[in-house]
């Protein structure tokens, strides 16, 4: 076994042996200082009353500005440029915030999620659907026009996964044991987060972060939404920053249709203006791939 250990160690060292260059020390220190400053500002905002004004300004959700239906989703990434000037938008009065995610729903009973978790990687997103009536769903990770991550499928309590094309996985679809599912993050992790994208799921999640405010009822394209909002009262686990989340719930269905999240930038890369355009899956058919 020791020999195996040594062989594996040696192989890994060879794999990771490419030159590493030197650390961008000045930029790291500058960004670190900026993070400290932003946190201090964020705390004072949280202690005050500026959260709604701040998010409202960042969103452009003043009367009329947000009433553009899905077009708002498509335009939003450029609305929340942090350090890049956006002269046609209201200037945030507090720490700069950025949009990090939005969900879209396609139908009443089932929904399809298009999710961009990282603006730095263009066209890299999660795509999937979940039908609570039949309890079936699938998801895949796209990079550009191909699947780059494993495909996952859920049938009731059965979970299947297969590796993306091009990786060494001779087994095709594999059923996962409950323990493996749990270790991987549970049902939600197989559905682009869709399982918790229900009103109760989201609100439960939001409650853990701080007091949830009911922002009010809003109309977009003649559809009524109830808007709820929370700003974290402590740094988000694993990230170290504060963020603000809004949940838009369609009044007629009770489904969360869009989730917006802003986060104070924490690193040099995040200061770049997001350029990804959100896709809308409205009107696209939902297909279930049986493993």
């Amino acid at each position, binding site marked *: 076994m020791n020999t*195996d*250990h040594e062989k594996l*160690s040696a*192989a*890994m*060292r*060879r*794999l*990771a042996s*490419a030159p*590493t260059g*030197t*650390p961008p*020390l000045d930029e*790291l*220190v500058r*960004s*670190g*200082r900026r*993070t400290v400053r932003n946190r201090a500002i964020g705390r004072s905002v949280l202690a005050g009353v500026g959260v709604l004004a701040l998010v409202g300004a960042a969103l452009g959700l003043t009367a009329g500005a947000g009433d553009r239906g899905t077009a708002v989703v498509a335009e939003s990434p450029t609305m929340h440029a942090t350090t890049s000037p956006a002269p046609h938008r209201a200037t945030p009065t507090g720490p700069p915030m950025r949009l*990090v*995610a939005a969900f879209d729903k396609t139908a009443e009973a089932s929904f399809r999620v298009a*999710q961009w*978790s*990282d603006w730095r*990687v263009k066209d*890299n997103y*999660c795509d999937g659907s979940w039908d609570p009536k039949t309890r079936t769903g699938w998801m895949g*990770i796209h990079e550009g026009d191909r699947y*780059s*991550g*494993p495909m*996952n499928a859920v049938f009731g309590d059965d979970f299947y996964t297969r*590796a993306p094309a091009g*990786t*060494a*996985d*001779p087994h095709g679809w594999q059923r996962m044991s409950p323990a493996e599912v749990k*270790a*991987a*993050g*549970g049902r939600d*992790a*197989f559905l*682009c*987060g869709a399982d*918790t*994208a229900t009103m109760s799921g*989201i609100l439960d*999640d939001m409650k853990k972060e701080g007091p949830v405010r009911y922002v009010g009822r809003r109309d977009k394209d003649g559809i009524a939404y109830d808007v709820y909002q929370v700003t974290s009262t402590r740094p*988000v686990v*694993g*990230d*170290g920053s504060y*963020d603000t989340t809004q949940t838009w719930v369609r009044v007629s269905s009770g489904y969360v249709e869009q*989730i917006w*999240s802003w986060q104070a930038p*924490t*690193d*040099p890369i995040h200061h770049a203006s997001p350029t990804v355009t959100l896709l809308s899956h409205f009107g696209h058919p939902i297909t279930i791939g049986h493993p």
Partner: protein
Amino acid sequence: MTDDNERSSADESYADFVSRSWEGYLRVARLLTGDPHRAEELLQDCLVRLYARWRAVSRRGSPDAYLRRMLVNGNVSWWRRRRRESLVAEPAERIGPSPVSHHDDELRRALLALPRRQRAVMVLRYYADLPEREVAAVLGCSVGAVKTQNSRALHRLRGLLATDSQGVR
């Protein structure tokens, strides 16, 4: 000591730490992410966040353990870093052309096919050479869980490597 002096001294020790550890942790990040660009982004993300907590972390004398944990968590949570956006799928994982041997390339692809948690165990155990107890501390789980993940990962790796080799022949 004034605030300015203290800041300067903290900056210096932070810079020392980064200069000293950059190479090693970038390599850990490469193995964790499977992508050299993502690895550098991940490490920079973590180092910026580390700066914000540097005084407390360095005072406790545990910056290595802290950074290691940030790297693993940061990689695991890349797709699900916003809690509600929980995803388990792998992000785009590519490694550009590299002068590795065929066998090493097989290993690279097999490693990438492992679930992130198992890959983290592999990297920490076999690359960083950490004992199981420390791997458990980094991953925030029990030693037993590390053993289980380790065993599963090895089993899967063996299967993948064996099949891959057959395919090549």
